[in-house]
């Protein structure tokens, strides 16, 4: 059996003595669009930081394939992380560089490609996210949605196997958010990469999520796992149901059985 793309084994995340989440145990398979969800402040973004090598777990392991991210030495970790790309919440483009320079940065640092080649790849990546022709713009000169897409182009610069997204649709209008969702899905389909996404945008979760984990801030651990649609119809945990239905089931006085019928109809 091939090992899963990413495996989190018995991980505890903490800031000093303050535990954020404990006993995290889940796997992400190749080709998944994996959603990390949960209420505000439950540690979703912190979990992402642990996966992309910015924060060390207090306990437990993160496995990329068969390699442990945090037990590997620095070179191996660098190599593992070069196979990932991250889109931060606000795009996190370097403001002193043009879009082309932003995207060219990882290419010129981690590959031996010539300047001409890099320019072609930059144009291609910008075209992929619908920003063809915007090479010479500075991040401050384009809109928030465009910054996010440019951030996506940079995250994809090295053709990563795993793409991470932190709240990709936050701050976007519903139509742009939908377009971004479609883009993410079609990139996943065509590139065969794995997508890991932190979000609490229900529309996105149901539209593109194929697997997910639900973090709870009270018990400080994961309380549900599976495809979002399946969770909605099968979960019996009131917290999960409340989240996935925006609390509307409760307000309407509907019970578990009703919600099941509702989602099946």
């Amino acid at each position, binding site marked *: 059996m091939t090992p899963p793309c990413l495996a989190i084994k018995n991980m505890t995340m903490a800031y000093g003595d303050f535990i954020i989440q404990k006993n995290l145990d889940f796997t992400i398979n190749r080709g998944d669009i994996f959603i990390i969800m949960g209420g505000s402040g439950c540690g979703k973004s912190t979990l992402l930081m642990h996966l992309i090598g910015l924060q060390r777990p207090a306990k437990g392991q993160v496995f990329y394939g068969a390699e442990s991210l945090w037990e590997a030495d620095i070179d191996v970790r660098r190599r593992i992380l070069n196979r990932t790309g991250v889109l931060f919440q606000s795009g996190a483009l370097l*403001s002193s560089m043009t879009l082309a320079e932003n995207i060219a940065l990882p290419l010129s640092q981690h590959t031996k490609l010539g300047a001409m080649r890099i320019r072609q790849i930059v*144009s291609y990546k910008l075209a*992929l996210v619908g920003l063809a022709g915007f090479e010479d713009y500075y991040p*401050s000169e384009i809109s928030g949605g465009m910054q996010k897409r440019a951030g996506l182009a940079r995250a994809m610069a090295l*053709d990563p196997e795993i793409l991470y997204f932190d709240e990709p649709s936050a701050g976007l209008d519903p139509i742009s958010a939908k377009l971004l969702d479609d883009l993410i899905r079609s990139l996943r*389909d*065509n590139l065969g990469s794995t997508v890991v996404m932190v979000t609490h945008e229900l529309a996105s979760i149901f539209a593109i999520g194929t697997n997910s984990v639900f973090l709870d801030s009270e018990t400080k651990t994961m309380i549900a796992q599976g495809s979002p649609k399946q969770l909605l119809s099968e979960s019996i945990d009131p917290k999960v149901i409340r989240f996935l239905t925006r609390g509307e089931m409760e307000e309407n006085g509907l019970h578990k059985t009703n919600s099941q019928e509702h989602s099946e109809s």
Partner: protein
Amino acid sequence: MITTHQVCEIKIVQQEATLALALAGDWVLDADTPSLEPLLKQMLKDSSINRLVFSTDALGRWDSLLMTDLIRIIDRGAHEGIEVDLSTLPEGIQGLLSLVYAVPERLDAKRHDTKRPWLELIGDGAISAVHEVSSLLTFLGETVLSVGALVRGKARFRMIDLWINIQDCGPSAVPIITLISFLIGLILAFVGAIQLALFGAQIYIADMVGLGMTREMGGFMAAIIMSGRTGAAFAAQLGTMQVNSEIDALKTMGFKPMEFLVLPRMLALILVMPMLCFYADLMGIIGGSLVTVGFFDVSVLEYFDRTADAIHLKDLIVGVTKCSVFGVLIALSGCMRGMQCGRSASAVGKAATSAVVTCIVFIVIADSTMTLICNRLGV
């Protein structure tokens, strides 16, 4: 990790009007790919070609590298009126290509760097210089208005901000002021002592250090230190607030940034600078005494007695007054650059840099002017 790649190859077969391209190998970022130039040239020159097909049976792994090559071929095809048949390409590639061509390139978005004539550059420079002066005067005017509001007791800012700023500008700066002033006194004494000792007039080192520190160097050095330490900090703080829209938020809540942010900083510096100046004078004199007593055979008592004779109250007042003026200038330039800051990380850096430069320029100009005035008035 060294991975071995299948060598990339591209075979071109022409059958009448159709060009068949057979792609082979691992077409990935760190692979060597064959040059496309012969193919592109052929497409350009041979007008009999009207169709292009691909076969990808031998194609291994592929990534952006193949995509950029395909895009070049397709673009050239479109340009020469050659029909490019994509249907035999792997599904993933087709999907990506349809994404690439989904949004047409915004031609108006492209920028062309045109070389600007030197006359235009000079004109731009002149206009921005005028703009600079007018924005400086605007800021000065707004400052005066908010000081007016303060005097009438109508300025709104938080007292705690004033105290925090006093703490930041005053006590926190004492160690660096101590070190620098002490060393300045020491250097001053050494430089003068060697000359004075030739005439056996070592005792006059006390006069020189005492007057030099109180009238000029104490306040001046304190101001230079504070412009680097506090002027830059003000610019960076306010600049970052600008980047985070915090200043906009204050405006919408009905606060005037000039009163809420600039006044406490300026007041703090105006209150603190005279004290720092006085302290710096003292440290300089102690530094001077160390050299004189240690190396030039003058007793501690003699030195301080001589210093007390040499310095008059008016010297101290001149020095401290100058330093207060410097304080206002530092607060003004620091806050002005911060408030004018753009909305990016590099703009904050620029704001901090130009704050320090502005501070130092203002300080030197103000110092020379005031020294000249004192000289004329005979104080």
